[in-house]
């Protein structure tokens, strides 16, 4: 009996292969997008962990010098005083055909359990003794080609880094006797002499307060995750529609089976098993697809992350169980959610209910009211959350409520618009056009909701990424405004440098700072010269009148957004600076990606208050064309290594170019989400077209040609799609606003200003119309080519 019942149930799919295809394709696509995004995120996160774990120093506090580099004698002094520290020297250098980050470590003192130590196990002498030996990821080795020492493949080393002995690093970087940072090992001896007494001027940086690569890049990953989730939701609409339709069409079968004595319980188990099977098949297919999607996108994601944050992400994807399992789980959950409603309907179905095929999603007046009520309730929930929500979770609930509310409202609004069209229509065909649209709306509503969600997600995420990009470019402009940056190794050298630079450049601006505590937070105070560089480029998000003059005269200071938000200090308030006094907050500037408080103080006040601050780093304004020449001169005259100079015009160009690659990813995800939505529309229209013969046959009999009818059908699909696209715009903008102003603030403590890009909307609208055209074309074509006999047969079988 069970086997027979199963055969009977499954025979439905044999008769409706397109429906089966839709169900599986929808679920597979949804899973693919979701798991693809998860795979990208997992790969990137694993890379960040690797970067930290390699030195075992990610979890450890470290000591740094405000001037940038630590004298090696300070290292010896600390060790001789009993402090257990290990030196690290890090710097960029041209190696072979590539520019790499050289990571010099001291294996004898490096923290225990260090991956780095295992790397050099076989022959420590080769690693320690010149010319040394470098460990790097295979990709890095390929990129470098020939190096002045042997390169050994070590996949655990982050891409773009070469791990060498600190002595080798010092000589390659031209930084003999210099150290970037000292890792403070755990289990320090009790009663050690204070740090300040042994090596004055070093700052202890605890891992918790430090800018964490993962935290910086979280915003990027959040975007991807949001995209994946939305794509999945859109995919679920398809599955829901297909499953619901299949249930509806099999009512006759259910009735017969029940009448023949199949217990309801077993029937439900069979149906649930069927859905689980589909979930597994589609989930597996989705994983494969997702892996391909992620694999093809990863090089771009990796390039973006590397360029944006220096985050070392390899360009090759590894299979990870965590996202594979999550992907299959999502597929199964999805199919159960989609089928659950139908199952519960089945449970309540009387055995001998009439087997009349009823439109599954026929919207009764009561159903409409319920849907409207749900939409309004969810909208209200979103509204309440905007004002009262606290934390990231509330932000995500807000996001979900907003989208769901909008999706539920779509058919209602479309129905109202169609009624409006009907009232204005002249002539019977036009009136029928609108009325027919309204009648079929319930059957298309799920697909249209999916389309709306896809479009809204595209607009929302696209707006956020574009805003982020615009902000990032602005941020680059303010941070890298000078044409040339140079750091001296000693105060005397800095003095000589300034003297040498002044006559040949427009301005030599100090990049001098002191670490202190402001409003109870660790903060960095910069001495800022009064120069157009700042006045013209530093974007202020809040400013008092004549803010820059206040800074120049020393009446006021500029603070970064992080400090402003954390301590609630805005123009009009005053802030206590240790050693300086109480000064007015003249302006607040955005400072993305920096978790710490920062203050800009006029240079005169700064020098007075912090006479001991190192004066080594300088930003130089000059003709960009002269930079290479100047670098050569400084190299000859001062023996300055290239690592202490940087030509920022070039660095910026590279950064921007790399950032553009981020949009390859976004565009690809946009296209994929939209494809899913188009598929949903197509699926609905295909099934609809089969059921519409009865409605169209009388019109054909009244004299409308099949061609005319097909065009009308096509037109109606396009009108619905266009209306949906228009509705998606405000929803997408709202979504972007929530992402930028709520999720971002909750997650990172700073708010990205929203910028709108209407050209993108136009492009997206065209894409949506194209997708709708493709989805509507096939059913319309089928109608245009349907045999007159089929239409006549409608009257034979008149019901």
């Amino acid at each position, binding site marked *: 009996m069970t086997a027979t019942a199963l055969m009977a149930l499954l025979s439905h799919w044999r008769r409706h292969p397109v429906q089966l295809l839709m169900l599986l394709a929808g679920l597979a696509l949804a899973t693919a997008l979701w798991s693809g995004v998860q795979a990208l995120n997992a790969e990137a996160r694993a890379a960040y962990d690797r970067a930290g774990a390699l030195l075992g120093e990610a979890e450890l506090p470290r000591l740094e010098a405000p001037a940038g580099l630590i004298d090696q004698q300070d290292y010896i002094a600390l*060790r*001789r005083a009993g402090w257990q520290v290990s030196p690290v020297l890090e710097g960029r250098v041209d190696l072979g055909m590539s520019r790499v980050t050289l990571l010099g470590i*001291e294996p004898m003192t490096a923290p225990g359990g260090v991956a780095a130590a295992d790397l050099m196990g076989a022959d420590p*002498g080769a690693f320690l003794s*010149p010319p040394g030996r470098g460990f790097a990821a295979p990709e890095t080795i390929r990129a470098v080609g020939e190096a002045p020492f042997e390169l050994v493949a070590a996949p655990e080393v982050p891409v773009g880094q070469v791990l060498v002995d600190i*002595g*080798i690093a*010092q000589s390659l970087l031209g930084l003999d006797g210099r150290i970037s940072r000292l890792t403070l090992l755990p289990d320090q001896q009790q009663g050690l002499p204070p740090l300040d007494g042994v090596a004055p001027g070093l700052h202890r940086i605890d891992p918790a307060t430090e800018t964490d690569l993962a935290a910086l890049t979280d915003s990027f990953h959040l975007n991807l995750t949001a995209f994946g989730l939305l794509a999945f939701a859109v995919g679920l609409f398809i599955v829901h529609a297909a499953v619901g339709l299949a249930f509806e069409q099999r009512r006759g079968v259910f009735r017969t089976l029940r009448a023949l004595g199949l217990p309801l319980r077993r029937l439900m188990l069979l149906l649930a098993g069927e859905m689980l099977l589909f979930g597994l098949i589609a989930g597996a297919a989705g994983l494969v697809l997702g892996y391909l999607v992620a694999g093809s996108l990863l090089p771009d994601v990796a390039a973006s992350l590397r360029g944006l944050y220096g985050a070392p992400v390899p360009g090759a994807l590894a299979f990870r169980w965590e996202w594979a399992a999550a992907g299959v789980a999502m597929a199964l959950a999805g199919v159960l959610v989609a089928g659950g409603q139908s199952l519960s309907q089945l449970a309540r179905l009387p055995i001998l209910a009439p087997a009349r095929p009823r439109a599954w999603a026929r919207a009764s007046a009561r159903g409409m009211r319920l849907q409207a009520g749900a939409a309004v309730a969810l909208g209200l929930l979103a509204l309440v959350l905007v004002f009262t929500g606290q934390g990231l979770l509330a932000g995500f609930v807000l996001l979900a409520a907003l989208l769901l509310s909008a999706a539920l409202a779509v058919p209602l609004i479309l129905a109202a618009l169609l009624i409006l069209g009907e009232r204005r229509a002249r002539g019977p065909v036009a009136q029928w056009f609108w009325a027919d649209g309204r009648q079929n709306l319930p059957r298309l509503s799920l697909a249209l909701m999916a389309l709306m969600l896809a479009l809204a997600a595209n607009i929302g995420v696209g707006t956020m990424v574009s805003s982020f990009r615009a902000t990032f470019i602005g941020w680059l402009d303010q941070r890298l405004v000078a044409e040339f940056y140079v750091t001296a190794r000693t105060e005397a050298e800095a003095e000589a440098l300034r003297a040498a630079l002044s006559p040949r450049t427009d301005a030599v601006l100090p990049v001098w700072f002191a670490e202190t505590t402001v409003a109870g937070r660790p903060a960095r105070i910069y001495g800022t010269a009064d120069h157009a560089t700042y006045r013209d480029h530093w974007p202020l998000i809040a400013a008092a009148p004549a803010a820059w003059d206040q800074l120049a005269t020393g009446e006021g200071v500029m603070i970064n957004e992080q400090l402003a938000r954390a301590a609630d200090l805005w123009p009009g308030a005053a802030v206590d600076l240790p050693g300086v006094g109480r000064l007015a907050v003249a302006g607040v500037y955005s400072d993305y990606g920096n978790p710490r408080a920062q203050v800009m103080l006029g240079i005169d006040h700064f020098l007075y208050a912090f006479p001991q601050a190192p004066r080594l780093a300088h930003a130089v304004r000059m003709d960009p064309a002269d930079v290479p020449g100047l670098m050569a001169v400084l190299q000859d005259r001062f023996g300055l290594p290239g690592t202490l100079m940087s030509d920022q015009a070039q660095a910026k160009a590279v950064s921007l170019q790399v950032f553009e690659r981020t949009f390859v990813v976004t565009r690809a995800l946009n296209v994929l989400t939209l494809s899913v939505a188009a598929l949903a529309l197509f699926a609905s229209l295909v099934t609809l077209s089969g059921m519409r013969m009865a409605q169209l046959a009388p019109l054909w009999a009244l004299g409308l040609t099949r061609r005319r009818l097909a065009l009308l059908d096509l037109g109606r699909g396009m009108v619905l799609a266009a209306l949906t696209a228009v509705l998606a715009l405000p929803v997408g903008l709202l979504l972007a606003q929530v992402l930028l102003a709520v999720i971002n603030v909750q997650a990172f403590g700073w708010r990205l200003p929203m910028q709108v890009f209407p050209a993108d909307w136009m492009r997206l609208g065209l894409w949506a119309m194209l997708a709708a055209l493709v989805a509507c074309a096939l059913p319309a074509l089928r109608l245009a080519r349907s045999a007159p006999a089929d239409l006549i047969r409608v009257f034979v079988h008149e019901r």
Partner: protein
Amino acid sequence: MSDRPTLSRRAALRLLAVGAVALPGTTFSGAVRAQGFAGLGTTAEGFAVPQRGRPLVFPQDHGSHPAYRIEWWYLTAVLRGADERDYGVQWTLFRSALAPREGQGWSAPQLWMGHAGLTTPTSHFGAERRARGGIGQAGVDATPFRAWIDEWQMTGTAPPGADELDALRVSAAGGDFDYRLDVTAEGPLVLQGDAGYSVKSEAGQASYYYSQPFYRVAGVLNLPDGPVEVTGQGWLDREWSSQPLEPDQAGWDWVSLIFEDGARMMGFQLRGERIFTSGTWIEADGRATPLPHNALRYTPLAHAQVAGRAVPVRWRIDWADGGLSIETTPVNPQSWMDTSVPYWEGPIIFTGTHAGRGYLEMTGY
């Protein structure tokens, strides 16, 4: 001494230990396998080899010999506290050369490792330090004598005219302990083997080896429970060579014995395919008599579970020709040095035909 077929027991230990210096975190067996003696053996060319008849010259030879592959300054002390409890202290500095030259800066091919041990009847503390040569973090100067790694020090305090090693101030610290000892020699330096030239095998392998076994010790141990004043006796070993270890020798059991009548004795057995024993009898005035192979017999009396392995912590040691038969008891059976190359090292008390105190070192368990 001269007929020992291999380097002394400490040479072997120290070779292992120093070979593993650049391998933080690896285990004993891992060090043997991954590093291997072959690794060190291949670079044997170029290192200096001890020559018979070259007299040891002091104070120069108290300092380091970078042309030789391995070297150490090894002090052990058996102590008694003001609290009437027994204590033991170890202070060791190992040097290992990647190439036979001194060098300056990071490219100097000299590696250093320090071990500090402190044993009480109920606890054992150990610590390890590692350093590169050439940058000032660790090293040894002959005059004025000082050996150091990080803040650990062994500094000469002898008056002018006396041998640099006649008086030393020694200090070291680990996470939860530290000690400071003043040691003063009450007897002469003892040259091992043929005037400090210690032949190891028929093939002519040898090391330079001398000791100062006659220290009187006073100092303070700082333990988690508080400071303890201690006094006692100490023993310093100095040895340098370029010899690799025989591959079949899995470990060794070594003792230094300080008799109540003022005499001293050093003895060991090497556990290879066959057992090899050797030793030195040292009169109270410093006259030394080498003990030939098979003169000593080691018999384990009791094992203890130490760091997950069975270690023979009580021994009977017989020297039939010398009329000596003693049984040793550790002050603390758990005297385990949990360093990058782990081993057992701690103070012992012995009774039998002779009585006294000493130090026991066991490796390869």
